[in-house]
């Protein structure tokens, strides 16, 4: 296995990528007659896996979605493409790639699999409830799980774009990292190690400040594990479009490469609350959310203290 720190040469691509833009560089290799399968948000902001042959469709797959995606009939569809001799890129979580390999039973020369380093997959149901709550019934026109335009790569702020309004929030980030909303299997995930089922494994390069400080500008760097010979072949081809440095796995050991997250003690309570309380309660208790009136009150108190202090 070879380990790399990667950023795309095109800063515009990097700015709109979740991390350093490695998915764009590799999937570009398939846009000339090949097929790309990956996760997009549908018109109702559900994460689903779809097939595309063009750049517009591929661009929707960029950036990880922090929800479990629905694969639908993708496995069968990809197999048909493979049998037809098309060059196929399949990207997904490790379990989606592992499941697909089990389904195929054999390797195809014309198939490349990319898996992402995943903390665990959050519930699509909680996601929908969150979106309804945060948008307050306004029409949502876009969702950015990590807004790098207005914030840093490490800030992890999500932005919900509504008509005439942009809502920045970290409630989903907090819910995600509380681990209460992950699928039960994720706490026992067999792919939480440096052995991955993808030919290439990609992630945010957490720890870049140590592994390769010269790339660290808080704009996003990709961690790339090249696991197979086939993966290496495609990585070589993608090198034209990227700046890359070989790094050490020892300096790159983010938690999901070591072990699965633990089941939180409060997980049962979370789901009880989710069933019985409104989402404001959930956001306050588990999503580190402070309602506007409380924030205003806090500011007012602060101001009064300041004024009285001056007097």
């Amino acid at each position: 296995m070879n380990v790399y720190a990667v950023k795309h040469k095109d800063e515009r691509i990097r700015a709109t990528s979740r991390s350093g833009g490695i998915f764009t560089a590799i999937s570009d290799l398939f846009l000339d007659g090949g097929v790309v399968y990956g996760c997009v948000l549908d018109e109702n902001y559900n994460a689903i896996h779809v097939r595309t042959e063009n750049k517009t469709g591929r661009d929707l797959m960029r950036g990880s979605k922090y929800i479990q995606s629905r694969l639908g009939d993708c496995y069968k569809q990809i197999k048909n493409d493979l049998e037809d001799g098309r060059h196929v890129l399949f990207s997904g979580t490790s379990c989606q790639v592992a499941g697909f390999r089990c389904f195929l039973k054999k390797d195809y020369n014309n198939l490349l699999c990319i898996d992402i380093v995943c903390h665990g997959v959050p519930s699509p149901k909680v996601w929908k409830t969150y979106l309804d709550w945060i948008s307050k019934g306004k029409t949502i026109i876009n969702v950015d799980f990590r807004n790098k335009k207005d914030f840093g790569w490490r800030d992890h702020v999500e932005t919900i774009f509504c008509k005439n309004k942009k809502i920045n929030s970290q409630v989903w980030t907090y819910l995600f990292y509380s681990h209460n909303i992950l699928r039960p299997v994720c706490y026992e995930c067999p792919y939480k190690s440096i052995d991955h089922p993808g030919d290439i494994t990609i992630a945010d390069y957490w720890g870049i400040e140590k592994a390769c400080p010269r790339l660290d500008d808080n704009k996003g760097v990709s961690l790339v594990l090249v696991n197979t010979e086939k993966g290496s072949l495609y990585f070589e081809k993608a090198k034209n479009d990227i700046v890359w440095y070989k790094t050490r796995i020892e300096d790159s050991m983010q938690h999901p490469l070591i072990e699965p997250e633990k089941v939180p003690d409060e997980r049962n309570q979370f789901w009880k609350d989710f069933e019985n309380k409104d989402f404001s309660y959930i956001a306050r208790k588990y999503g580190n959310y402070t309602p506007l009136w409380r924030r205003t009150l806090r500011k007012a108190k602060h101001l009064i203290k300041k004024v009285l202090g001056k007097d």
Partner: protein
Amino acid sequence: MEPNNKIQNTNPIPILYERKEDCCGCTACYAICPRQAISMEDDLEGFAYPHIDAEKCIRCQMCMKVCPIKEAKRSVTARQR
């Protein structure tokens, strides 16, 4: 090779998972079923799990063999031996 209904029907209906921790929802079993007997259905937490229609199932056990989580656990057990 077409699985034979009469012989295979004496087998039990597969139990795809006993605990929720044993299913990642990857759809491999759903996709491999030769009789489209498996559907993916949401549980209360909103995660999709495979459900077998006993009427359609011919007990060929292909769904049991295709599961990546079962495979991963088998290889862990094999390594421990």
